[in-house]
């Protein structure tokens, strides 16, 4: 599993090590060059001193310097060496430190001063400088006009090598210490920096179906995580609504089945306990309860299938006016019983719909209107159509509906309390009607006007007349 913290730690430490290694190496080489340069400067100073002290004297070449100067060239403390050659390679002068040995010049044609590493006569490592020079003016300079002598100065370079080794050691120790400190620091900083992310993940891990009411506290989060927490909170809110709806639906299903089950059980227990009191109506009651439960299960199945997108509407051109009149016919008798006045305001309209689904929707709207219209009230059925679409309106007078009721009307199992009696309505019809209308690409809405008249508006497309 990829860990952001581990990946960042690895990459940051790697990058820092490269930078640190480069910086230490650059520092080491700069310091090394500086130390060697200082050593070479010392060599040059010695060579300059020797060349300036070299002068002809009595037909010979002599070095006129104090013993103090030649202390490092002495036999007793042989740290420095020099040798002077004449143009014909005759040794004119040499340091006591050389004893019997000689310095050797690798390149006789010395056109310019040269510095190189070499092995000293006593086999120690050394560094040498060779140059050509003309002796200083003296009493008999005329005897050596344009005399070009060759001087080679060599010094013991062991202190130089030791200094360089020490520098390298210090660099390595500093590198190791810095690397350790960096690893610790990077880890700590990342841990602290990524803590809000970890907190967010921990909180998300604790969420389950029972804790969907909890929300991520976006206020205390870094700006980068706030959009994530915001989206997660929105997701949780949707999940909570969805879970609550499902929970309520399950509870409603159980609740709605309890009453017919109680009816059935009590009826049969009574018949068994007092067989002499059993009436022929008992069997019809049992059948009616079974039919009621069957109708409820059928409605529930239709709802579930609709929600699982298994509902497919087969659209075709439908004469909405004729279909509406057909659908109304079964309810006309009940409307007369309840002394309802029916107002028809119907235009002839063709539409695109699934006739079976449309019949089901209209049947539900008419049944509700006939059953719930206030006694002696009115029902208005209106069909209107233009180029933009068709609208079928079913309006009935009501007695005690409120705007809150209208808002909940399409919820599953919603019923106004009075509607419970009789076991005829389950509160699923309008949910189904809305689902069927959506499956056809139609819409179904409910409105309550100021005169407390409830109107359902079913809107759909108009059928385009075929060419020719």
């Amino acid at each position, binding site marked *: 599993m990829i860990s952001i913290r581990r990946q960042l730690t690895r990459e940051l430490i790697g990058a820092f090590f490269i930078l640190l290694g480069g910086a230490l190496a650059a520092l080491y080489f700069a310091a090394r060059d500086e130390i060697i340069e200082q050593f070479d400067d010392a060599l040059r100073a010695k060579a300059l001193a020797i060349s300036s002290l070299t002068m002809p004297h009595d037909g010979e070449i002599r070095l006129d310097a104090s013993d103090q100067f030649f202390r490092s060239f002495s036999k007793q403390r042989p740290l420095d060496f020099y040798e002077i050659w004449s143009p014909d390679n005759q040794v004119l002068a040499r340091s006591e430190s050389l004893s019997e040995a000689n310095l050797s010049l690798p390149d006789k044609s010395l056109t310019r001063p040269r510095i190189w590493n070499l092995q000293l006569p006593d086999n120690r490592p050394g560094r040498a400088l060779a140059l050509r020079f003309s002796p200083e003016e003296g009493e008999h300079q005329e005897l050596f006009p344009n005399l070009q002598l060759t001087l080679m100065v060599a010094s013991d370079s062991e202190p130089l090598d030791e200094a360089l080794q020490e520098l390298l050691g210090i660099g390595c120790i500093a590198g190791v210490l810095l690397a350790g400190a960096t690893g610790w620091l990077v880890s700590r900083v990342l841990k602290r920096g990524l803590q809000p992310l970890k907190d967010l993940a921990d909180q998300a891990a604790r969420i389950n179906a029972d804790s969907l009411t909890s929300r991520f506290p976006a206020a205390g989060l870094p700006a980068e995580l706030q959009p994530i927490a915001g989206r997660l909170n929105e997701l949780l809110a949707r999940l909570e609504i969805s879970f609550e709806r499902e929970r309520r639906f399950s509870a409603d299903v*159980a609740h709605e089945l309890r009453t017919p089950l109680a009816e059935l059980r009590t009826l049969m*227990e*009574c018949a068994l306990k007092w067989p002499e009191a059993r009436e022929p109506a008992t069997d019809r009651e049992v059948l009616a309860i079974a039919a009621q439960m069957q109708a409820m299960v059928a409605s529930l199945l239709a709802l579930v299938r609709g929600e699982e997108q298994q509902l497919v509407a087969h659209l075709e051109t439908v004469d909405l006016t004729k279909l509406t009149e057909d659908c109304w016919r079964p309810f006309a008798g009940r409307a007369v019983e309840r002394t309802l006045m029916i107002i028809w305001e119907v235009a002839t309209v063709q539409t695109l719909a699934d006739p079976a689904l449309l019949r089901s929707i209209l049947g539900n709207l008419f049944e509700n209107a006939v059953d719930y219209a206030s006694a002696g009230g009115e029902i208005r059925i209106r069909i209107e159509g233009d180029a933009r679409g068709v609208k079928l309106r079913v309006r009935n007078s009501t007695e005690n509906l409120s705007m809150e009721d209208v808002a909940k009307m399409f919820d599953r199992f919603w019923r106004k309390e009075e509607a419970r*009696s009789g076991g005829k309505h389950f509160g699923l019809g309008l949910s189904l009607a809305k689902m069927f209308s959506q499956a056809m690409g139609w819409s179904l809405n409910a409105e309550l006007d100021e005169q407390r008249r409830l109107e359902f508006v079913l809107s759909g497309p108009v059928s385009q007349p075929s060419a020719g």
Partner: protein
Amino acid sequence: MRVLVVEDSSRLQRTLGTALRKSGYAVDLAGDGDEALWLAESHDYDVIIMDIMLPKRDGLAVLGQLRAHGKTTHVLLLTARDTVPDRVRGLRAGADDYLVKPFALEELLARVDSLCRRAYGTKQAVITVSDLEIDTLGRHVRRCHKTVDLTAREYLLLEYLARRLGQVVTRSEIEEHIYDGQVDPMSNVVDSAICSLRKKLGEYGEAPLIHTRRGLGYVLDEVSATAATS
């Protein structure tokens, strides 16, 4: 014992009414909260069986109103709501018992019987008066170890008198508790029933147990009253 059944499902209401009447209760039926409140306030029921989700006024509101008006009638809530919070809410609203649908009829009858016994301050299922034994669970009556055959109404009357042992019970109280709303209050059904009951209890020649207090009512007691005994 008189019971009020408040249930909006007409089928369940009818069946419960039949079952309770068959079990010897006088039963009144109501289909909505307003009717239930009116009946409960105007009659002295022994037990009210009430659904919660009712048209017009829900069962808890009816219960709240009854308790607010000082009615202590025992109420059994009979509902499809089965969650613990629902039960707690119902019992805290003043209900004496709670039964969830669907239910066993025998259990409902046993609970109603239990509430009736509690209404008269006794937990005993068998009431003994001298040589008379009344088994309120089995609804059997024995005198001198011999079974006495009584009609449901006669049994109900005897049980009511036995539960009020030693107390004078007025005719109107008997009408209130033994007869449902279908009985004409001006009729002499109470006197007829008492007469019939006395006859059946005394058919073996034992001492009379039901005594008349003239102008007051009747009393069931072992000791014969010296005055005004008919």
